[in-house]
């Protein structure tokens, strides 16, 4: 008896193994049969997948979360590739004397649950945001919202605010009063009703674990019936996205720059992004020797930004505009380019500052000029963010100019923390949003985030930044923004290194485009709901 049992142990395993294999093979055949999802579904791939429940408050505070939300909710005004277009508001007007905006609303709008949309919802939204704080924009700029009639809304501003149209009217999603009244913790309200908006798509499902979203077309959308019956977001790694596109599992996705040529030859449409992301060399301008603007200028001359783009980005990017804005930005000022690559100038400035070159490195008072450069790992970040490769190259460039550089790799958040607490010499960092409203300049020069240069020692720069916010005349504002870039470049509190080029590829079913100044406040993703309805 016993013998029998042990003999069967091996055989049992063998049989089980074979059965399992057969099952997997069968599973393969079965699954392939049903792989094609039908023509009316539009699938967008993303390497992260989960960006939170797509309500205005529950999605994660990142650009792709906003994108997922904007298909369901509408704003007063929207943007296409050229500029502002009507959305919930048919027309709008700025009343200079009252410092208020008046919006005339469409009368044919209904919420996804069939209720009529009226001015009351807009007033409710503004009041609700005042109480509950909206992440994407500072709502305190609106002091009062009134609805003189059912289809007119008047928003009174606290002060003249130039970014209002972009950062408020075209960013703040309008939520239905009948759903949200009484909701006290909006970020935890993830009922299906929390996704009721007026947008071209209706919420069907969201799966956190799989990182997938399913929306269906809203046939009653006032802007026209969407071209696709269903919109689907799925999670697929960037490395296999080209294969997913070729295998027709996906209709659109961001792709790595190196495959763009091949995909284009195979008939895919490629859209090249605006350069809304800037990689920066953060400089600790609170400690010597970096607190001296001349020293920072010497540093800027020693970094060959074109070489960084050519080598580390393999040409898929633009050298950083010294005034933070990318050369293809409508607000860009070429006068700000003060730092051609020139190690000789670096040497000249350093000598002027009392440094003497001994052997390979500069020295002062017997001490070698030595800086530590912090860099974070490969694991996270947007495509093209500066990592080890860029750090190695910058080090070799600075060493060539006679500045000794020690590299130190840190986990991403540790690096952010050290930069935030000014515990560094140099660090590699970067952020998006520079393609949005130029208000971003205030956030990344004066703001207190670790992404910001946090530089307020130039009175002129402070004044200019303040003025650009209240300059309601576009021409006047353009002049101020141009001047800001020049002064920034002169002060050089953080060196813009490059702007990576991002590519999206799609099969042409829906004509995707990049939005003027980005979706919402400036999200540089070419998924604009208008592409699906017109």
């Amino acid at each position, binding site marked *: 008896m016993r013998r029998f049992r042990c003999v069967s142990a091996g055989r049992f395993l063998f049989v089980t193994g074979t059965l399992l294999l057969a099952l997997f093979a069968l599973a393969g055949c079965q699954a392939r049969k049903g792989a094609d999802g039908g023509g009316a579904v539009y699938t967008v791939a993303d390497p992260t997948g989960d960006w939170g429940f797509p309500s205005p408050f529950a999605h994660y505070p990142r650009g792709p979360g906003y994108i997922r939300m904007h298909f369901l909710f509408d704003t007063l005004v929207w943007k296409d590739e050229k500029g502002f277009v009507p959305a919930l508001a048919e027309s709008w007007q700025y009343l200079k004397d009252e410092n208020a905006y008046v919006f005339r609303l469409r009368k044919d709008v209904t919420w996804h649950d069939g209720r009529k949309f009226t001015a009351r919802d807009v007033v409710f939204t503004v009041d609700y945001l005042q109480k509950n704080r909206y992440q994407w924009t500072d709502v305190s700029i609106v002091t009062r919202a009134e609805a003189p009639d059912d289809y007119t809304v008047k928003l009174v501003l606290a002060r003249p605010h130039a970014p209002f149209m972009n950062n408020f009217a075209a960013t703040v999603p309008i939520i239905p009063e009948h759903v949200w009244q009484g909701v006290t913790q909006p970020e935890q309200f993830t009922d299906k009703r929390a996704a009721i908006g007026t947008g071209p798509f209706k919420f069907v499902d969201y799966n956190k674990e799989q990182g997938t979203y399913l929306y269906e077309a809203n046939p009653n959308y006032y802007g026209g019936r969407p071209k696709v019956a269903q919109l689907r977001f799925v999670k697929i790694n960037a490395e296999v996205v080209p294969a997913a596109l070729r295998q027709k599992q996906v209709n659109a996705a961001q792709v790595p720059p190196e495959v763009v040529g091949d995909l284009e030859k195979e008939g895919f449409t490629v859209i090249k992004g605006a350069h809304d992301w800037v990689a920066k060399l953060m400089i600790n301008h609170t400690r010597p020797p970096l607190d001296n603007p001349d020293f920072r200028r010497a540093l800027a001359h020693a970094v060959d930004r074109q070489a960084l783009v050519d080598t580390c980005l393999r040409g898929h990017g633009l050298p950083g505009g010294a005034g933070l804005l990318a050369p293809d930005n409508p607000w860009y000022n070429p006068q700000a380019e003060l730092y051609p690559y020139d190690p000789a100038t670096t040497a000249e400035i350093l000598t002027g500052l009392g440094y003497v070159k001994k052997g390979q490195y500069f020295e002062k008072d017997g001490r070698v000029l030595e800086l530590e450069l912090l860099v974070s*790992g*490969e694991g996270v970040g947007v495509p093209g963010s500066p990592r*080890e490769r860029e*750090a190695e190259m910058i080090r070799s460039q600075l060493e060539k100019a006679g500045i000794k550089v020690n590299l130190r790799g840190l986990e991403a958040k*540790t690096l952010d923390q050290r930069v935030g607490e000014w515990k560094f010499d140099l660090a590699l960092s970067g952020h998006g949003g520079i393609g949005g409203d130029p208000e971003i300049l205030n956030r990344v020069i004066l703001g207190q985030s670790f992404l910001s240069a946090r530089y307020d020692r130039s009175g002129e720069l402070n004044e200019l930044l303040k003025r650009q916010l209240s300059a309601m005349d576009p021409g006047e504002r353009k002049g101020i923004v141009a001047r800001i870039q020049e002064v920034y470049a002169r002060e050089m509190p953080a060196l813009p290194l490059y702007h990576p080029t991002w590519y999206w590829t799609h099969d042409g079913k829906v004509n995707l485009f990049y939005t003027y100044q980005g979706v919402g406040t400036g999200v540089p993703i070419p998924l604009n709901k208008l592409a699906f309805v017109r």
Partner: protein
Amino acid sequence: MHVDYWAHLKQSNAGRAGLILVCLLVGVAVLAPVLSPWNPGAYTGAIFSPPGREHWLGTNDVGQDVWAQLLFGARTSLAVGCGAALLATLLSALIGGTAGLLGGLYDRFWMRAVDALLVIPPVIPAILVGAYLRPSLAVTVALLAAILWPGEARVVRAQILSLKERAPVAAARTFGAGWGHILVRHLIPELGPVLVAVFVQGVRRAVFLEAGLSFLGIGDPAVVSWGRMMQHALRFTYLDVWKWWLLPPGLALSLTLGAFALLGFALETVFHPRLRR
């Protein structure tokens, strides 16, 4: 036990193969500057160039020579892998061994400590060490050894527990042999194969963990290692480059670990005179 380990090692095929491979790898690592026409960090300007006369294994995403990186990477990977595994094996033999031998409260203390340490995912100590200590090869080795030893200590302890009760040990105890005698004469030789297996596994895990550290970005980015090479190459698997960039370090790693395993395999014979033929 008077065994000439060396002679026996040389006698077995596996031992010879393992020895030759390990010597070869160490030789390659030492002679890296001679064997490679390029500096591993040099930007050659040719990006993603396929293998050819100029670059024997092609170039990577920033135009560095893959062959040169492979050779210099051997240095880091061997040093980190062997160093961490050796340290961890010593620690685990010491703690696991004594816990198994002494038993009682001491044993319980260490085993619960091991439990607590085991459940901490390696990422957390890695982040903490990276945040507070300046990274260097020694720190990396110490960190990896600290991550590795608890698991190994349990294997050693289990083996000791089992050995303690076996006939030779029991016999020796009846004859009034001291624990010292038993330890040297019976337990250590009997423990041999397990320690060897533990060491080989340690090398394996250490090398993998090192690759993981580079994924998190902890350490000196300028130090080339096979793990780091693979982590970089993984981002470009949509191109053909993985054939000459990802495969070589992967295969080299597999070869190295295989060589150590062969050595372990041969040593096992040496430790077990009974099984020698």
